[in-house]
């Protein structure tokens, strides 16, 4: 009888182990493709001591370089950004982050105000799968879930990714337990260049008012920061698309005024920042590349340090040690990317697809 129970327990443990390993195997690794998927999870291994936290969508993780902020101003920062991060996802990420550390400033890109409802399952996955299980994550899942999604598939992602059995590659095995870092404190580097040729004009909308849900979460974010003595800065990154309507801008200006917050629309400051849309973007104006991001960071770092008093930590030896390593790997990646551009014409290992040059069109 005892033997039977022991065998059953052993079998159960073995089964759980196999399922655990399978889950690790089947999760997409986001190394050679869609590197954005790796972003959220990379935060947890960090030494969590940042004065500035960025949250938001690709307009934060492509447009700001924490390394530049460090090098020029000694500012320690992290970008908890992810692809098409929705405002409630930003809120819950912030809520979770505050359990690990208390930054002085939080910077939020307001583009996501335009999305009042969940949008795409794929983007939900890119943001949520990387989060560690927590109350914030559970609330986040419930708010983000689309109709055809199931809660249990977020707790046991094997259920979501089981169909990958026919698409597994060497990468899935290689990175089962440990992954290389793809970002630099949340910044996804792109050194390629694709100049702006067309700035699409915004189509007329029937209703420019941001949704109730969006405002609700913006309020929550404002309160969360106020309750924790954190300075919340609302920004609009300088991208040419999606179109940022004047009517939207006005709403943000009004909101910031009403709630005693700072709102910076970088689209109005292109000259001051020195953005050159023929050199500083890698996808025709949607996102800045490394050079654009460094320019923007240099400009914004000044604001942070002078207007918001974010301290210069370069004299702190332990912090400096950590950041020196980051700086090294940053320039190493820049070099590697430049090499790939020369060798292949595009960033082959960095998730870029072969770009069609204008002559070929």
């Amino acid at each position, binding site marked *: 009888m005892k033997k039977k129970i022991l065998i059953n327990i052993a079998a159960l443990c073995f089964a759980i182990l196999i399922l655990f390993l399978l889950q690790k195997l089947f999760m997409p690794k986001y190394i050679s493709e*869609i590197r954005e998927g790796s972003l959220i999870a990379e935060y947890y291994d960090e030494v969590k001591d940042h004065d500035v936290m960025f949250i938001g969508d*690709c307009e934060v993780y492509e447009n700001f370089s924490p390394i530049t902020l460090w090098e020029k101003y000694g500012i320690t920062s992290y970008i908890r950004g992810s692809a098409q991060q929705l405002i409630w996802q930003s809120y819950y990420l912030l809520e979770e982050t505050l359990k690990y550390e208390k930054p002085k400033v939080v910077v939020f890109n307001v583009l996501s105000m335009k999305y009042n409802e969940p949008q795409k399952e794929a983007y939900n996955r890119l943001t949520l799968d990387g989060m560690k299980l927590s109350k914030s994550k559970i609330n986040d899942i419930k708010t983000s879930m689309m109709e055809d999604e199931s809660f249990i598939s977020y707790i046991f992602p094997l259920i979501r990714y089981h169909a990958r059995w026919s698409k597994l590659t060497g990468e899935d095995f290689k990175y089962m337990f440990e992954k290389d870092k793809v970002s630099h404190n949340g910044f996804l580097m792109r050194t390629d260049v694709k100049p702006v*040729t*067309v700035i699409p004009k915004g189509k*007329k909308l029937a209703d420019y008012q941001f949704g109730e849900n969006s405002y609700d979460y913006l309020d929550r974010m404002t309160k969360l920061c106020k309750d924790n003595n954190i300075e919340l800065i609302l920004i609009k990154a300088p991208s040419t698309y999606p179109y940022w309507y004047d009517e939207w801008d006005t709403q943000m200006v009004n909101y910031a005024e009403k709630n005693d917050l700072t709102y910076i629309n970088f689209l109005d400051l292109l000259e001051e920042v020195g953005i050159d849309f023929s050199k500083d973007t890698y996808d*025709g104006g*949607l996102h800045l590349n490394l050079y654009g991001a460094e320019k923007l960071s240099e400009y914004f770092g000044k604001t942070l340090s002078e207007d918001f008093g974010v301290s210069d930590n370069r004299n702190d030896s332990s912090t400096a040690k950590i950041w020196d390593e980051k700086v090294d790997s940053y320039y190493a990646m820049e070099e590697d990317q430049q090499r790939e551009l020369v060798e292949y014409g595009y960033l082959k290992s960095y998730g870029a697809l072969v770009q069609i040059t204008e002559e070929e069109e």
Partner: protein
Amino acid sequence: MKKIILLITIMLLLVGCSKEAKDPANDADQENDTTQGSNDAQNNDTADDTATQDHQVVGFSFEYNGVKVPMNVEAAPVVEALGEQTDYFEAASCAFQGLDKFYYYSGFELDTYPLDGVDYISSVVFSDDSVSTVEGIYIGSTLEEIIKAYGENYTEESGLYTYTLGETKLTILVENNVAAAITYLAIIEGLQP
């Protein structure tokens, strides 16, 4: 002998039954929608599909210089037929989940979305009053003219009048009683209108 006659008679009767069952079967198209006791999971759409079987696009379509621009069809042949664009823009979304393309022409913009590696037309947006719909509505047409052309079967919200036909929509934003924006849209699941 008698047996054989009877057998044939019965067979004919039975076959006859089947044939009779065939004729009023056109209503099977309607029934299929409300049939709950179906033997299959492929429930609702069979009827619709048999109605629009010939891949004729049932819906609004735009016309420019004699080129028909229906919604949700393959973009490549249409783009080729329309000739040279004044501008072209590729809208990569975050994480490169699909590349939307905007083709700019004189008076309108053609947008496409990718599906399984092929671009399909998702919308046509009028950019000025130099183009009009097949029914003669353009930016500046009055609300009266719009309703005259398309009827009363619309939904309206905040001044945006939406007409639906098949798997397409025609949305007209009316400001100060005139059309301020006109857009053709394909109704695609998961796509932002």
